[in-house]
């Protein structure tokens, strides 16, 4: 079942502007991750934020997490044409039905970001 839902579905901005994408989820999580997918390719991990963290930075990326609202946001500052891609949030939850006691990553449907040069 889908856990994360990104908003907006699509976003178009000029190069140099900031891009903000939001993610909402439904159940308690262990952590939340953001991935990027260039057109027709595999996903690349960008950043992970744990459930006890509120904000995290990595280069031009800033992620926030509000567990009380069950939401997260990804901010890309000073966007570049090369940032054009789809961005997915993914929540990590325990698989209680798994004999391995493993975790499951559940992805949202993604935000398609276009950065216009």
């Amino acid at each position, binding site marked *: *079942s*889908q856990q994360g839902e990104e908003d907006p579905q699509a976003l178009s901005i000029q190069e140099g502007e900031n891009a903000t994408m939001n993610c909402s989820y439904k159940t308690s999580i*262990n*952590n939340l*991750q953001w*991935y990027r997918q260039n057109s*027709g*390719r*595999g*996903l*690349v*991990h960008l950043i*992970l934020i744990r459930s006890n963290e509120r904000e995290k930075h990595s280069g031009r990326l800033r992620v926030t997490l509000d567990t009380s609202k069950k939401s997260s946001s990804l901010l890309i500052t000073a966007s570049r044409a090369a940032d054009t891609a789809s961005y*997915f949030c993914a929540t*990590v939850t325990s*698989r209680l039905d*798994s*004999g*391995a006691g*493993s*975790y*499951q*990553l*559940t*992805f*949202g*449907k*993604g935000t398609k970001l276009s950065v216009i040069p």
Partner: protein
Amino acid sequence: DVKVTQSSRYLVKRTGEKVFLECVQDMDHENMFWYRQDPGLGLRLIYFSYDVKMKEKGDIPEGYSVSREKKERFSLILESASTNQTSMYLCASKGGFGYEQYFGPGTRLTVT
């Protein structure tokens, strides 16, 4: 550098054919995953494996099976391909203690 490879980038098969999608990782990861990605539905987990010869069903296992005979290789099998299995298939792997998954480039399968 981390690497997950998939046997084909594009594949066209006929309805009823048996289809094998192969995935290989070179990171000695215990966990491997198969997802399918469809427009408007995002990524959905088909099967995963946490060790050699071990497998567990994901959210949409119907019509699929998997095989993991060696640690580095995880195969997805469509026993009798159907048109509703036309999709992008993504393989991923993960180490024992980390949460980050590493993805292959994907196989775009078309069943006609």
